[in-house]
């Protein structure tokens, strides 16, 4: 069984501000790239502009695959699939693909640039909702999930030109991939791992794509998925939106899978008693492990939620959500608007300012079927596209490589001179490495091992803006204030009680742990970590028999801190000198980890499945000191030579069995106990 997430999620990000591509940007085909929002092992995402005759000018998000990866068919196919599948879905609740193409061997997707916040980001800022505000939020959650259901229904029922169902399943519905615009409309993002007939990138049986915490049990088990699998994921999202707690948050991937597969799901009202009964019923109808027991399709879910909304005393529509968004995220909205204005305000780049890379667009021909014929034609197209014969203004055959263009643009630009927000930093300085031959790949190859992120738009923009929400900002300053107060009192106490003693030697880091000073992390304060992007810092999942949230209202801050410590993301106060960096949970980032392990050169390796049987009796199966189950047992492990321990009938004395785990394959262990 393997895990992967969307193409976007496979990008590696470092902790940096968005980077201006240059004063005049980089001309990339018909687009002008202005800011590099994120870069990683597979590609780069830019904020750019699309200009045309008659003053046509609009911001676009450009996902660009790295040229040196263009020969990796699997990655390119996934990229093409994302473009094709999303391009076939036309719905106001699905992020629009403007076009897809290739510029001098570099594939790209041009997407609608969305001004808004992901549901994950919204949830992060929802602490302390009470009373009417809380009830209003429940209605907004219902409205937003109605939007998501409609968008997904459009995907599920999408047909090709001949009227044949494409059977698209998103497979990665999560709070990170649901974006709420400041206009109050939710859009479904990232069909990078979607399943559809005629995908170029074939999905083998048993491979799992998506985030474990949100994927349906049948999906986590590597079985066939259908539209109802997305409904489960929406159910988890709705559950978390209502309870503001993570539903399946476990320490390991295996535990998460087990929880998804079998853990009893507490009804939302036992977590937060103010949740309306009608919404609770809807959530629980989605979280049925038997897909047949879930609503029959996303539209039915939409109807259920609409019925609930119609029964409410106050209407909740885009206007109400927009007001909520603007009120809660006024700062972010303004900053994003400023940035877009900056992008659009500059004069369109001329050929004299930077070299132009002509593009070859692959038209998003929605009339073409996603069947075998399409697959063949696309493959042929790819072959053609891999042999570009574009002539640049300089006359060089094959055109200017994208990275060279970036270098050229950087050389031509004056960093930070444009006054754009956020400040521009040269790529080479930011990465701490010499400018590579191909420019962009430097950051991919370095691949910060502990830092990875999902490149949803939320993440892009958060990375781009490098700023936290107002709620976060308040909390951070509270922490800083509290810490300073404690520090002052501590120093006063120390000097008053030990004035006769010789001054203590300067404390080492280890000593600091013994006598901690609760100085908050200056970069990431408690509670700031993104809901989705750093799940380890989230609140604990609801425990069985735990009291309702209402009863814990007064302990919320303490619980949050505890949860962060559990997750390991909250830096213990005993290590004030260490920088706290967001960690991703393994189940949500398996591919990213694998990419890091393979130094970004290879395609993401999928885990392998292991079947274990003991003849003559059962045995405990131990992996890395942890019991993962009893025989007979099937589970997944990272590829490579692994060692299992089998303890017959719970006997403490076990036998160690080496297992060669191969990516995407099933290894078998049959051991005679007798």
């Amino acid at each position, binding site marked *: 069984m393997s895990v992967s997430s969307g193409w976007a999620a496979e990008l590696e990000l470092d902790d940096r501000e968005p980077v201006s591509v240059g004063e005049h940007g980089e001309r990339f085909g018909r687009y002008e790239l202005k800011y590099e929002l994120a870069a990683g092992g597979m590609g780069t995402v830019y904020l750019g502009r699309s200009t045309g005759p008659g003053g046509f000018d609009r911001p676009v998000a450009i996902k660009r695959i790295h040229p040196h990866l263009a020969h990796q068919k699997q990655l390119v196919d996934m990229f093409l699939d994302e473009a094709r599948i999303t391009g076939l879905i036309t719905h106001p609740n699905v992020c629009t693909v403007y076009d897809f193409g290739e510029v001098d061997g570099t594939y790209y997707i041009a997407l609608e640039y969305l001004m808004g916040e992901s549901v994950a980001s919204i949830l992060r800022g929802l602490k302390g909702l009470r009373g009417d505000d809380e009830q209003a939020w429940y209605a907004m959650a219902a409205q937003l999930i109605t939007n998501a259901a409609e968008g997904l229904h459009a995907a599920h029922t999408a047909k090709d030109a001949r009227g044949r169902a494409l059977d698209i399943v998103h497979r990665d519905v999560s709070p990170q991939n649901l974006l709420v615009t400041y206009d109050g409309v939710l859009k479904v993002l990232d069909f990078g791992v979607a399943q559809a007939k005629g995908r170029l990138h074939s999905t083998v049986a048993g491979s799992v794509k998506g985030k474990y915490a949100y994927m349906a049990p049948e999906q986590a*088990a590597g079985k066939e998925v259908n539209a109802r699998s997305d409904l489960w994921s929406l159910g988890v999202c709705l559950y978390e939106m209502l309870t503001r707690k993570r539903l399946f948050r476990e320490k390991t991937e295996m535990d998460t*899978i*087990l929880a998804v*597969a*079998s853990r009893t799901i507490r009804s939302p009202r036992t977590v937060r008693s103010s949740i309306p009964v009608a919404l609770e019923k809807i959530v629980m109808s989605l979280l049925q*492990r*038997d897909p047949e027991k879930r609503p029959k399709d996303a539209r039915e879910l939409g109807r259920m939620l609409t019925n609930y909304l119609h029964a409410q005393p106050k209407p909740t529509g885009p206007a109400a959500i927009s007001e909520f968004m603007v009120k809660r995220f006024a700062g972010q909205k303004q900053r994003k608007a400023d940035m877009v204005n900056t992008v659009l305000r500059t004069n369109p780049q001329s050929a004299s300012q930077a070299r132009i890379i002509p593009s070859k667009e692959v038209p998003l021909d929605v009339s073409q079927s996603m069947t075998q014929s399409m697959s063949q034609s696309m493959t042929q197209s790819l072959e053609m596209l891999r042999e570009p014969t574009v002539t640049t203004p300089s006359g060089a055959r094959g055109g200017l490589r994208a990275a060279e263009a970036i270098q050229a643009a950087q050389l031509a630009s004056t960093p930070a001179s444009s006054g754009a927000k956020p400040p521009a930093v040269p790529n080479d300085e930011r990465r701490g490495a010499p400018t590579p031959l191909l420019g962009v790949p430097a950051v991919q190859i370095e691949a910060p091992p502990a830092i990875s992120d999902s490149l949803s738009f939320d993440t892009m923009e958060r990375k781009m803006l490098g700023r936290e929400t107002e709620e976060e900002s308040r909390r951070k300053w509270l922490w800083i204030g509290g810490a300073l107060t404690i520090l002052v009192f501590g120093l006063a106490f120390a000097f008053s009680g030990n004035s006769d003693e010789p001054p203590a030697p300067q404390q080492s880091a280890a000593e600091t742990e013994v006598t901690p000073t609760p100085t908050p992390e200056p970069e990431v304060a408690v509670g700031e970590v993104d809901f989705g992007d750093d799940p380890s810092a989230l609140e604990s999942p609801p425990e069985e028999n735990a009291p309702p949230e209402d009863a814990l209202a007064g302990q919320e801050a303490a619980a949050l801190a505890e949860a962060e410590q559990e997750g390991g993301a909250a830096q213990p106060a005993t290590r004030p000198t260490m920088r706290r960096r967001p960690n991703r949970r393994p189940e949500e980032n398996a591919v990213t980890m694998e990419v890091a392990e393979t130094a970004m050169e290879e395609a993401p390796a999928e885990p392998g499945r292991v*079947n*274990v*049987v*003991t*003849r*003559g*009796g*059962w045995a405990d199966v131990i992996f890395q000191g942890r019991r993962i189950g*009893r*025989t*007979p*047992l*099937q589970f997944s492990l990272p590829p490579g030579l692994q060692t299992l321990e089998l303890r017959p009938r719970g006997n403490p004395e076990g036998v160690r069995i080496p297992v060669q785990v191969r990516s995407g394959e099933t290894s*078998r*262990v*049959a051991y005679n106990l007798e």
Partner: protein
Amino acid sequence: MLARFLWLGLCVAMTIATGASVQAQGDARQASGERLMTQAWSAYEEALFSDALELFNAAQASEGLTLEQLLQIFEGQALVAHATGESGAMEQALRRIANIDPRHTLSDLSPPEVSAALLEARASAGGPIRVQTDAEEIPGGVRVHAEVEGDQMGLVLGFRLRIRASGETEWRTFETQSAELRLPELREVEVIAEAVGPGDAVLAARGTESDPARYTVGDPIVTPDGTGRGRRVALALTGTAVVLGAAAVVLYFVLRPQADTRPQAPRVTGP
């Protein structure tokens, strides 16, 4: 003449061959079920879970399984489901086991969580499955009907009724829930009723060859549990009592001292 002998010989040979073929087919079906089950366990022991599951399912759909073999198949299905984390499928297989035989214990292969799940399954599976029969007299014979009780999991797929007149050596077999037997001077019938489940396994039976259910023809309601005999005894006692009563009445009237009707001699009085 020779042609007649040849024709007769041919008929006999065909009859024998047909009989042998039917027998062979039955054996093959039985062998097929067993073979599939054996193959399933072999696949299981090689940790080929999906193959094992397919073979267990195929064995379950075959014929000629014994009850014990069917229970082993259900246990195999439960183990594979446990291995692959399909708790629903595991519970269903265990409920089937519990429904057939609530006291069944699993093999050593089953880990404690599976055994515990079987204990839970017992609570909800009902069972055991039981077969009840009744019979009614019809002109010239008797009609026997079988019913099943406790089939919570819907495992009973059909019935097999075997009926014969007392004193006969051969059973007449019916693959139906009801059957009739008409024979001249039929006095008593013997019945074996079986509830048949997956793999043609007999899940429950009423009567055995050595102790079949018996019904006496002529009783107003015949049941195989001895109540007819009691009724007969009661009738005999009642009849005897009536006869004795009548006799007593007769004797009373016969033997009672009657009034002297002879002419009386004139009474002589005085000297």
